[in-house]
């Protein structure tokens, strides 16, 4: 246990005294997680609604595809984006590679499957009668969507939290597409990798501790939400 204590003794003061490099990474990580998740939610929710409520041919296949995209390795997403963004590639003229913008794009793409697949699943899990009754009562597409989102809100929020979680802890695509440039486009996860490469284990540990604390806060929120959802479901049952 010797080594881990020694490194902790150096790492904890780094966090405690608000090392400016650490603070800048924290700030950038939060920004990436918030922006990527927000964009993914705006794009993903309409897709999830269409998948869950739509009645068009091939929706079963598209749902399967959405579920499959959850297991897409981030390193693969990074490689594909690289092949699209590198100098000679189709998106090369935009000069996105190794920029902060590229990091935002990569994390948005990685957050999208969580929003689409998990929200669609939550909407599909609603009591069967609910939506068909609304349809029968003449609800339009927009009213139906709002009703579905409101009723499935716990599942949708859980999807958003899952998306935030990946944005915080994902390392592969960020490193490939952002280049892991010191003090520029590093997130907590990619900076951990960077410091380990340089054998600065105390710095790596400090960053990792901040990362795990953020994840824990997020997961506590999810846990609370799950407990609440039991209450809500009960209330729903007794009302019918």
């Amino acid at each position, binding site marked *: *246990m*010797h*080594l*881990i204590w*020694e*490194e902790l003794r150096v790492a904890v003061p780094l966090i405690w005294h608000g090392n400016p490099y650490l603070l800048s990474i924290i700030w950038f990580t939060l920004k990436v997680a918030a922006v990527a998740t927000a964009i993914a939610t705006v794009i993903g929710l309409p897709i999830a609604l269409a998948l869950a409520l739509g009645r068009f041919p091939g929706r079963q296949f598209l749902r399967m595809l959405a579920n*499959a995209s959850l*297991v*897409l*390795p*981030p*390193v*693969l997403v*990074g*490689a*594909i984006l*690289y*092949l*699209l963004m*590198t100098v*000679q*590639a*189709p998106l*090369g003229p935009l000069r996105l590679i190794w920029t902060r913008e590229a990091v935002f794009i990569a994390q948005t793409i990685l957050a999208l499957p969580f929003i689409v697949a998990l929200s669609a699943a939550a909407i599909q899990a609603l009591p069967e009668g609910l939506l068909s009754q609304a349809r029968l009562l003449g609800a339009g597409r927009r009213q139906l969507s709002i009703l579905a989102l409101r009723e499935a809100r716990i599942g949708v929020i859980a999807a958003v939290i*899952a998306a935030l*979680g990946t944005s*915080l*802890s994902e*390392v*592969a695509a960020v*490193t*490939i597409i952002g280049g892991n440039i010191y003090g520029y486009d590093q997130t907590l*996860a990619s900076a*951990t*990798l960077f410091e*380990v490469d340089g054998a600065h*284990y105390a710095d*790596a*540990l400090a960053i*990792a501790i901040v*990362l*795990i604390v953020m*994840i*824990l806060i*997020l*997961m*506590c929120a*999810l*846990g609370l939400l*799950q407990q609440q959802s039991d209450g809500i479901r009960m209330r729903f049952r007794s009302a019918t």
Partner: protein
Amino acid sequence: MSYVWDQIRAAIPLITHGNPYLMNLLWVSIRVALISTSAALVIGLPLGLALGLGRFRGRRTLQILANASLALPSVVVGIALLLLLLPGGAFGSLQIEFTLPAVYIAQAILALPYIVALTPAAIQGLPPGLLAQARALGAGRVQLSLLALREAKIGLLAAVIAAAGATIAEVGAVVIIGGNFEGQDQTLASGLMDQFNYTGHQPLVTAIAIMLLALILAMAGVLTVIQQRTGGIRLRFRTAA
């Protein structure tokens, strides 16, 4: 799009001719997936069963904890394990830092939450009467566990797919604990990441990416086929009971 197309055309021969570097990456990835997922199953199934079937105090809290561990960042696992395995660390005397066994351990740790958290979820999704009936008929702990596992096979295999997927796709811990040494402990995923350290030989990037995708799909495909063959077993059980 002709650029992307050219890349793919250049990559295909590398795969079909069995480029030795590529084949080594594939072999390491397969070994890591098999060994780490098996280890996670051996350790995780009893824990998952205890959470799913047990009736002890604090079970709910433990289950929330297990769910939270699904979000464990791979780089955190990597750095924590590294500090334990380096000389001077608690397990430094094993001298396995930057080796393949260390990678097995790291990926098993990352796969474990899927088994521990998703097994109880699958068991709790069973028809409520089933297990209570078995209990009432005097099933012991072992019999009850076997019954639960057999009945929850679909959810269980979904957990195995997720766990094996993580062992194949994760790079954060592999890179840190294995040191990403070419030909020794590089997996397809970490090998792919390594290509970008020296602005990669791009056909190789595409070739590794294709093989990684193929491996994930093959793993998910095989396990899905096994998963979908549950129907017969459940029917047999129902008619026998």
